[in-house]
């Protein structure tokens, strides 16, 4: 799940059992083997033709500190695949009008208006942190937002939104519970190193604190200014407080925190939010991420499942440089889930209302890279739009993300408060 392009391709090949023919030069052998394996996993071509089915999507790519261009890349890769190999939606190719935002509500609202003006059938959820502003505009235009990453609570609560698999909101509860477990449950003293902005404050106070307290542990949040240049004092403050387990809730400062913890001699357990496990972050941390735990809701590419093999083949063919992190995986899953649900639907019936109604009815729908989803509003009671709340435990070992155990985690749903 969390490897860079070349590594990912190698891992994919290994996972698929690529053979080695002695008579052929190594590079040519590898390329040919990868191509033939990818082709067999991708299946036979069934190219979509005719009038495209238009979706709109907003993606955050021009902010100065946290962008997710890999989400657009992942969506385009999967769309290319379903349009070429799966016949698109009932024979019609999927097309997306993208609007790039900096994540501010004003620019995202402007984007929303541009998308509405293009008359898409629905909005393809992607990565945006602007919250409710664009969602309310979509609601007024009777457009549903389907899938993507639920970075902010409104995406999990709006009437016109649907999230296949929780990737962001609920993960903090899971991470906090695991950090408390590592600290000894009731004996736990969990220090949460959180970025001192609205996101950090919200996640620390609404997820980490109640989750650790729910098992009887102690928790203290160490707020770090976004402008802090050297975090050694904050790390030292956490250690000197007597922490026996550390949680990281600071997506913009992962590398600094991981290297700082190593420099300061911290040898206790570290549990982190998902962005700290992105492949480029692990690489930048120069080994300091080893041993770190995190909760993820989607399969790793090296997990060996059919979905993981297909995802690896699609990435190898259409987006070989894609950093496979959670938002990218969620986007692959989103497009595939939409295809699964509507590939046989006549396009005249493809409206936002119909799509929402269909996705919310029935149960145990196939969920690409995850377990089957049921959108009955009960996966996380106060986040009714989330259809799947299951998490896996991962750990970084030798610079790679590896699954720990076979257990699926989804406790603490009652800790999510109503917005």
């Amino acid at each position, binding site marked *: 799940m969390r490897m860079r392009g070349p590594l990912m391709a190698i891992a994919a090949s290994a996972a698929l059992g690529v053979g080695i023919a002695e008579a052929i030069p190594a590079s040519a052998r590898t390329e040919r083997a990868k191509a033939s394996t990818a082709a067999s996993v991708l299946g036979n071509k069934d190219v979509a033709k005719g009038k495209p089915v238009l979706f709109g999507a907003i993606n955050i790519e*021009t*902010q100065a*500190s*946290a*962008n997710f*261009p890999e989400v657009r890349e992942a969506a385009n890769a999967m769309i290319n695949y379903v349009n070429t190999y799966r016949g698109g939606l009932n024979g019609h190719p999927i097309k997306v009008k993208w*609007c*790039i*935002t*900096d*994540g*501010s*509500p*004003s620019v995202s*609202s*402007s984007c929303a*208006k*541009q998308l*509405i*003006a293009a008359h898409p059938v629905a909005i393809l959820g992607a990565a945006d942190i*602007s*919250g*409710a*502003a664009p969602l*309310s*505009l979509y609601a*007024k235009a009777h457009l549903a937002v389907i899938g993507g990453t639920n970075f*902010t*609570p*409104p995406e999990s609560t709006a009437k016109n939104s649907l999230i296949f698999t929780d990737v962001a909101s609920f993960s903090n509860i899971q991470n906090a519970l695991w950090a408390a477990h590592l600290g000894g449950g009731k004996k736990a003293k969990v220090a949460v190193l959180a970025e*001192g902005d*609205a996101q950090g*404050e*919200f996640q620390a*106070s609404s997820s980490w604190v109640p989750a650790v307290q729910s098992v009887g542990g102690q928790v*203290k949040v*160490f*707020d770090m*200014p*976004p*402008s*802090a*240049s*050297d975090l*050694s*004092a904050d790390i*030292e*403050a956490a250690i*000197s*407080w007597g922490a026996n387990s550390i949680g990281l809730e600071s997506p*913009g*400062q*992962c*590398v*600094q925190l991981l290297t700082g913890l190593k*420099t300061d*001699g911290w040898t206790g357990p570290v549990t982190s939010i998902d962005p700290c496990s992105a492949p*480029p*972050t692990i690489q*930048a941390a120069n080994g300091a991420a080893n041993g770190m735990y995190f909760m993820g809701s989607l399969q790793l590419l090296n997990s060996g499942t059919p979905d993981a093999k297909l995802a690896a083949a699609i990435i190898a063919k259409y987006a070989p440089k894609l950093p496979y992190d959670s938002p990218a995986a969620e986007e692959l899953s989103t497009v595939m889930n939409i295809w699964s649900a509507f590939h046989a639907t006549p396009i005249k019936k493809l409206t936002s209302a119909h799509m929402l109604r269909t996705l919310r009815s029935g149960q145990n729908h196939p969920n690409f890279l995850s377990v089957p989803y049921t959108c009955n509003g009960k996966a996380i009671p106060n986040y009714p739009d989330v259809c799947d709340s299951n998490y896996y435990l991962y750990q970084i070992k030798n610079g790679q993300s590896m699954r720990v155990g076979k257990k699926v985690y989804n406790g603490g749903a009652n800790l999510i408060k109503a917005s």
Partner: protein
Amino acid sequence: MSYLLFLLLGLGSGAIYAMLALGLVLKYRSAGVIDFAHCAVAMFCAYVYIELKSSGELVFPWTAIPWHIQLFSKSGTAAGVAIPITLAYAAILGLIMYYAVVRPLRHAPALARVGASVGLLLFLEGIAVLNFGTFAVSSPPILPEVPVHLANNLIVPSDRLYLAGIVLAIGVVLGAIYRYTRFGLATRAAAGNERGALLIGLSATRLSAANWVLSTVLAAIAGILILPITTLNPGTYTLFIVPALGAALLGRFVSFPVTVAAGLAIGMLQSELAFLQTKWTWLPQQGLQDGLPFVLIMIAIVVMSRRLPSRGLVGDTHTASIGRPRAPFRTAAITFVIGLIAIMLFSQLYKFALASSLNVACVALSVVVITGYVGQISLAQSAFAGISAFMVAHFGIWLGLGFPVALIMAAFVAVVFGVIIGLPAVRVRGVNLAVATLAMAAALDSLVFNSTWFSGSYNGMTVRVPHLFGLDLGISKNGSSTVFAIFSLVVVCLMGVFVARLRNSPAGRMFIAVRSNERAAAASGVDVARTKLFAFGISAFIAGIGGGLLAYQQINITAASFVSWTSLTILAITYVGSVGRIAGAAFAGLMLASNGVMATLLNNLFSFNQYQTVIAGLALMLTAVGNPDGVAKEMQGTCFKLLGRVQRALGLGGGALTPAPAGGSVAGASGSAGDIEPGTVEKVAS
């Protein structure tokens, strides 16, 4: 012992602030520029270094066309090779920036240089986002990194000590250079009196360029040395500007040793606060460290205000020209009719964009008042808008108040903050005030806007839909923006009339008097302090109305809309529009706002929003260099010329349609009718 440990742990942060602050002081001393892009330059040079070291590529500050060349093998090169190349690169970059941006603006108003530096900041940030992405990168240690046992339980990483030692040494060397060497003395002479320096054979341009190069190299050194202890992405380094500016201000933008001491002190105190927060749990647990530079700046202002650089030094000798509104009601009526026609013709997309433009124009109007008319550089306008926007929501929740009472009351709450934030203006002015207001806005970000109780944190706050006499003025239930755009147009036209009337009123003339010469104004009976605070209050009120409009448009508002950096952009785009003119605010909203009509049009036609930051930065720089007095003034001049030709063609003779010179003004001879050119004064009404 723990207290001492945390003080020492702050040496790393302190050294970073000090090193960046030294570059800021150098630039100010030589060219009179507060370079808001200084940390962005450090960021870009750090990328140059890390790319050389890790992939052997030399990267350039542009995008789309090939922006890197393979200089070494793909496995990169050694730090010992990469560092000198990066420093040489920085020297060339500094020279180019000086001749392309700084030198053309040498005699321009200080604000033009602020606009250009903001443009450069946006440009470099945008380039870095596009070329390098935002995943953090780091570097292996450059300085020795071993734990140093200073005493029992007092262990400090050695690289922090080395870093502090290096910055101290640089501070002392720079201090000695500028005190004892011919180069330093010549720089001081040229900065103090350019013509005098020329008479004795010194080239102010060459000296200034050399200093600019030196400061850019210093930025590169800072960027490289701090890499191993901090996170490099396009956004992080930029945030260091507030504490660095604080250190530079404490050093009065003059003293290198004091600047170093101040930078180190800020870092050490921030570190100590992190420890004290664990000891004294009654301390606010959020925002305290970010608020520290502001506290120190305020102390500096109170204690050292007489010694802070002020008007009369390099960079503050010129101010932008200001317009004199004529027939404001008629102009507003014409504007309203044109706006109404546009709304009727526009599609829903452009109606929404027009409403966004109008919101920005309203906040820009507040800049026209405080900066254009009174000459006070405020970087807190976005904070005023934010306070008001959230108060609109709170008044709805707490008191059940709706439009217009909630909007007006919220704007008055912004007035209270305006007067408080304006207090430093009583003692300092110019760029020092800019630094103080930016630090205050940053403190508000951390302490107020990020707090759940005020802003609802990530969930944001929802405002009531505005109604007037039963008419729904908000974005309609089917998403139509027609009524809301008309509502915004009415409000902004009213604000325009208000500003125009204010400009022509006795209060407005007092504003101009204070702007022109505070001592002369005081001598003619103007209470300078009260006038400034009054202007801050009025400006905050207008910004508050703009914030309220934004809240009504977005319905759900979050702190992200009002971060302190937005104020810098608003100031820059208003300046480029023409900071002394109401038309300048309109231009800023329509043409330069990131979600306004022009941006929407370009995005819709060319899907250029990925490049929007880069293009906006470049446009800001070019416009500031090409039109240091603002675009609206140039456009106004062109309009009058066209009008004159029409008059002549119609045989009406000169003066029938063109406005007459302003009564009561000694200005206007060289600019548009009724204008006040830099350096002229207007009669103050009794």
